[in-house]
């Protein structure tokens, strides 16, 4: 409240007496290092944001997500039908060959499938490259966005996966080649078993990867929004000694495991700045000085 205040020319406004009373409330002044801590937090969050990959694609509308989901499901159903009919056709071919006692090229088919699927499979395992990135990404997205989709849609989605075809062909070829090459079964039974094993392994592998991918969608952001925030150590932290930090953000209190690369041990109660997140562990540094709101003059 101030004596220098302009005359109150608004009847619905506070009167001089109102303001005198309200003015008795002295506002806390920021701690001496407040500005430094703001800048430090801003820098930490900015550097964290710079490392975070930018999202170039705008979020899809609900209608568009549903349209894309329907298209994916239809394509998956067609591919699934193709896989099943291909397996059935191969078995029928082998059956016809056995009936006419003609030399069918079953082994050639098995070896070709094994070579094609096996090479891609080995390349994926050794190179660590995600051959199914495109399909798998969308499927994971489908799980995230279209949670309301019926289960039968989810059942056909693995057929859309490149992994289904890689694993399916590899194991189809391997099974058929072994059974036929070592003359363990008749060509007809080998064809049936190879088809079943190929379909089974391919579907299982695609479903497994798809399920794992969908579970990663919806996890917390890499830094959980904690980078740049200050917290108080509940348990001491030293180099090689993991502790715990309590962070208050937006009204929520979160306790995080904490590590530090600082050589100086930090006892419990130390005010720290979270400079990075390594998975679920906060990497902390000693804050410039501990903070404490202080009461001071009126502002």
């Amino acid at each position, binding site marked *: 409240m101030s004596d220098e205040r302009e005359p109150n020319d608004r009847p619905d406004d506070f009167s001089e007496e109102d303001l005198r009373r309200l003015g008795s409330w002295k506002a806390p002044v920021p701690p001496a290092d407040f500005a430094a801590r703001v800048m430090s937090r*801003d820098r930490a969050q900015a550097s964290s944001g710079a490392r975070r990959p930018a999202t170039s694609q705008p979020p899809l509308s609900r209608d568009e997500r549903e349209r894309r989901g329907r298209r994916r499901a239809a394509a998956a159903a067609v591919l699934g039908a193709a896989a099943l009919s291909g397996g059935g056709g191969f078995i029928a071919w082998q059956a016809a060959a056995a009936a006419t006692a003609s030399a069918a090229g079953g082994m050639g088919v098995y070896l070709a499938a094994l070579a094609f699927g096996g090479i891609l499979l080995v390349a994926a395992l050794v190179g660590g490259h995600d051959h199914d990135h495109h399909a798998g990404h969308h499927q994971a997205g489908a799980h995230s966005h279209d949670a309301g989709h019926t289960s039968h849609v989810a059942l056909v989605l693995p057929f859309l996966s490149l992994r289904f075809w890689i694993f399916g062909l590899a194991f189809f070829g391997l099974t058929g080649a072994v059974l036929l090459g070592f003359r363990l079964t008749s060509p007809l039974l080998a064809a049936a078993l190879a088809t079943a094993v190929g379909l089974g392994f391919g579907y299982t592998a695609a479903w497994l990867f798809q399920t794992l991918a969908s579970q990663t969608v919806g996890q917390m952001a890499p830094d959980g929004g904690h980078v740049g925030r200050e917290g108080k150590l509940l348990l001491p932290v030293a180099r090689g000694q993991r502790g715990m930090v309590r962070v208050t953000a937006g009204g929520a209190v979160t306790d995080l495991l904490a590590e530090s690369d600082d050589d100086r041990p930090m006892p419990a109660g130390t005010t720290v700045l979270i400079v990075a997140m390594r998975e679920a562990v906060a990497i902390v540094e000693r804050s410039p000085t501990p903070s404490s709101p202080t009461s001071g003059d009126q502002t």
Partner: protein
Amino acid sequence: MITEKRTRSGVSPDEQGELDDLTVARARAGDEAARAALVDRYQRRLYALVARMMVSRRELIDDLAQESFVKVLRALPHFDPMGPARLSSWILTVATRTCLDALKAKRPAVESIPEALASASNPEQETAERQMERRVQEAMSRLPEEMRAVVILRAYHDLDYDEIAAALGLELGTVKSRLGRARVALRQALGETP
């Protein structure tokens, strides 16, 4: 309104004015020194607003004040110096909304004034003004959050009705009616002054 003058708060008038245009432009361009100058210039006002808004949630004051400034710094390139809002009003708007979001996100069952903030450390030195300060805090803490924001922006930060309406996304009439109701509530709470 309750202005911030050196004679009462120890803050020089220069500290309370708007940052000069050149520094604002440099800050918007990302100049670190200019951004630090901006924080330094407005920290007292922002901190005071956050502290008053969060009167019953003292443990959040420091974090929310920092968070508000970080938001300000991030959004600074989008601030239009030629627009209708003063930089100080815009900063206080960001801080007010940050506080309201926090209060809505986690509302305590019963709001109470922390003792450390509410009373003097030495009861013997507690004056009538101290008692009034405590009563004002309690009265303000009992106001609905949106109404408290209107009062704080008007009484402590001298924002005009239009600026308050813009800051809180309210109609001008709503601002006036809230101020009117707040004034009545505060007078009832503080009426029996010694």
